């Protein structure tokens, strides 16, 4: 039998992997991809709890979360594109000042 804990462990893998990649990537796009990983970890958690308790709220929240994540990814990419246009680079280490 698979326990709830093992699903949460999977979510944990996704979460820490996402956090790590956000912290250690110099490329802005890679950072965004890491953020998506984090989102997915949360979604797995939601569905796991929905599956355990049988309530529909878990699934509906997961759906809402997915849609918000998608919108956020789009906006993030838009910002990254603008960054690229302004600073001529997407290296986050080089983008240190708000002036540009």
């Amino acid at each position: 039998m698979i326990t709830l804990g093992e699903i949460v462990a999977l979510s944990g893998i996704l979460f820490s992997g996402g956090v790590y990649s956000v912290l250690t990537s110099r490329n802005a796009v890679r950072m965004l991809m890491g953020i998506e990983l984090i989102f997915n970890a949360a979604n797995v958690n939601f569905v796991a709890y929905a599956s355990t308790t049988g309530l529909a709220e878990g699934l509906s929240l997961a759906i809402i979360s997915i849609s918000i994540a998608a919108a956020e990814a789009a906006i993030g990419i838009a910002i990254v594109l603008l960054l690229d246009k302004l600073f001529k680079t997407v290296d986050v280490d080089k983008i240190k000042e708000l002036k540009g």
Partner: protein
Amino acid sequence: MIVDVAYYIIVLVTLLSVVGFVVTKDIVRAAGLLLVVLACVAAAFAFMNSLLLAMIQLMVYAGAVIVIFLFGVMLTRREAPTSRLRQLASYENLTYLVFAALLFLLILRASAGLTSPLGYAYVSPQLVATSLYVQLRGVVYALAALIGASSIGAIYVVRKEKKQSDGTRGGV
């Protein structure tokens, strides 16, 4: 039994893909590995008896979001690829590794306490729909309003910029 094995395979593939995503220096390869991860997550959803969400995950994430990222990669400059491993081995990144590991251990500890077996409860789409559009309809409406408003606003801004930059009326 087979179900459990399937789950462990999903976990393994996810793990390998995440590690690969973090380690690889080519960003396109990273996007590909991200795709694999998203697919595994969809499999996990299926495993947990909600095909509905598995479909939605595949459609939205694996279908649209990953394309957005690919476009992002295409449209931005890429700096000269440096050795990612050397970059990862710096003191700073090692510190972050330590903290990410700490985080993971904390979550593991939390998960060790959750020993109830997975229920595999089947939630029918009707129930989901009811919950979404009846109880959580406020959230749905707000989201719709937000996205609608921001789309209209974005179009307006773009058209104004276009009018300022070249004065001619271009087609949307």
